[in-house]
């Protein structure tokens, strides 16, 4: 069995009286692509914000490579080898591509002075690596001048700079064209081939089905299903299951993956 990279144990998060997550268990192994699916308000965003350290869980435990973490924060998460491509891309649009790629991780030398030339060099290398070549912009172009797909490229370049072990992609294909979506898929396969892991969050179940090795369905703050790819025959299976979870007793659900019907009730 592959090395367990990250494990969430019984994670809960409540905002006042409202429960966003109620005891979620989730794990990602090395070299695995996990697809996280769920309806709006299922708690997907809260879950990845907890993983990326932006939000602190109300209760529960986070383990990185088997070790429980303390003092979890965005900086700690990045240091632990978790990079997140947020849904809104988290870019500072008035800054250059270089400044965005090295946001919060500036390459500095003596007394915090920037290694400007090294940053530009590394940025253009990253841009080439993800097939991000154009006559129109350089690493020193302003992000605000780029198209949506190109901005996504900057966010991805930032995520791969440190050879992170786990890359979280939050709705990476939303608002992208077909070719841009294909690029994202190609990127996911590249990362998996290099032995690193991806947590792929998607609205579009067909997209997630195409790319993931394992599926986790979140419903109203709880994990409704965990299934390996071999256990799910088609994307329609997943869709049926999700409908079944949303409307219990309506449609026939899945019969594998640890009796999900029981939990759906």
């Amino acid at each position: 069995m592959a090395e367990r990279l990250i494990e969430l144990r019984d994670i809960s998060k409540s905002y006042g009286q409202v429960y966003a997550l109620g005891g979620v268990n989730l794990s990602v192994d090395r070299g695995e692509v996990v697809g996280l699916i769920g309806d709006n308000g299922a708690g997907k965003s809260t879950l990845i914000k907890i993983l990326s350290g932006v939000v602190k869980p109300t209760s529960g435990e986070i383990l990185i490579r088997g070790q429980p973490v303390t003092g979890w924060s965005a900086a700690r998460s990045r240091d632990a080898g978790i990079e997140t491509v947020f849904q809104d891309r988290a870019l500072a649009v008035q800054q250059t591509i270089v400044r965005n790629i090295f946001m919060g991780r500036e390459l500095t030398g003596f007394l915090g002075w920037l290694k400007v030339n090294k940053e530009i060099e590394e940025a253009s290398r990253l841009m080439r690596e993800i097939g991000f070549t154009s006559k129109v912009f350089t690493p020193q172009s302003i992000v605000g001048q780029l198209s949506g797909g190109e901005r996504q490229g900057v966010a991805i370049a930032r995520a791969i700079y440190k050879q992170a072990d786990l890359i979280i992609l939050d709705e990476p294909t939303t608002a992208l064209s077909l070719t841009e979506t294909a690029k994202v898929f190609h990127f996911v396969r590249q990362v998996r081939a290099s032995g690193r892991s991806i947590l792929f969050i998607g609205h579009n179940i067909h997209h997630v089905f195409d790319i993931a090795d394992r599926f986790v369905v979140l419903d109203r703050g709880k994990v409704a299903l965990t299934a390996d790819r071999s256990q799910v025959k088609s994307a329609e299976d997943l869709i049926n299951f999700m409908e079944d979870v949303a409307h219990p007793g309506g449609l026939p659900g899945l019969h594998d993956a640890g009796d999900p019907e029981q939990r759906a009730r």
Partner: protein
Amino acid sequence: MSKTMEPDLHEPSAGISRPGNPRKEWKHPSDHWMRGFILDNRAALGTLAVFVVMMTVFMIANPTVFTTWYLYSSVLTTLPVALFVVVPLVFVVTCGEIDLSFPATMGFASWVFALVVQSGYDPFLGIAAAIATGTLLGFLVGSLVVYGGLSSLIATLGMNFLLRGLIQIINEGKSTALTSLADSWAYKIFSSQLYGIPVQIFWAIGFVVLSALLYNRHRFGAQVKVVGDNPDSAQQMGIDVKRVRVKVFVFVGIGAAIAGTFSVMINFTWWPTAGDGYLLPVLASVFVGGTPTWGGVGTVVGGAIGAVTVSFIQTGVVAAGLSGFYVQFFNGLIIILSLLGHKWNQARYR
């Protein structure tokens, strides 16, 4: 995603350079150093243009006064005081905040300086005490805004009144004369003249250059810009947004302390109103200099040129033979024209 596995750009290209050379692909209009320089510094250059036009008008209006050194010497004596606060304020505005408490910080820190010197200690000790006071006050104001979650516009305005009130209550409006300063080493180093040029300006230029490097070539400047641009993203990328915000207020506190001390050394006297007159000219300088109000971008050098412009308006209008009544009018005119110019000159990306 086409995986472009083209040869490394930094490899010397073997043989003849073909037109389809990958190096060529990365050529950008701004790669030419002149165009790049102009594009990167358009705000500062615009401010410089405003300044040059203004000075030309003044010189045509009264050539005799504007070719005498005395006029420039007097501007160069007072300008440094403004520069020490304009530059940190560029950082604050870039960070998406504003600080209106710096006049009171100037007054407070220079008061500490005056007290130390009056008690017979060395002025260097007074300067150190003043800077410590400014740092502390900056930290206090910054913490109030950042950790108290207050609007910086209102909270710093309140702190300005509060600190100034404190100074006035304790001093009851009385000033402190510091005649002993004239013989001190500190005065020679920080406030005398070198070949007829007031030395303050050299210190101020050094401060501007160091700050410009801090702004453009240091992690601090990079994080200030990112926080001002998109604080949520900065936080998601692990930047301690609150800490960066407090730091810019501390920077203003330090700048205000230096400015207050310099103004006392020029006059040999500390007034309880020290720093009060700087509020509006300094703020005007920041925006005349081309730093926009919305945060994320700005220019330190532009702010400095803005300060030069603003301090020449006052001297220039009077020297050009117009009455002092015209000063405010021209102040306003230059501010409005500069803002219109910058609006046309810079694009705002969202």
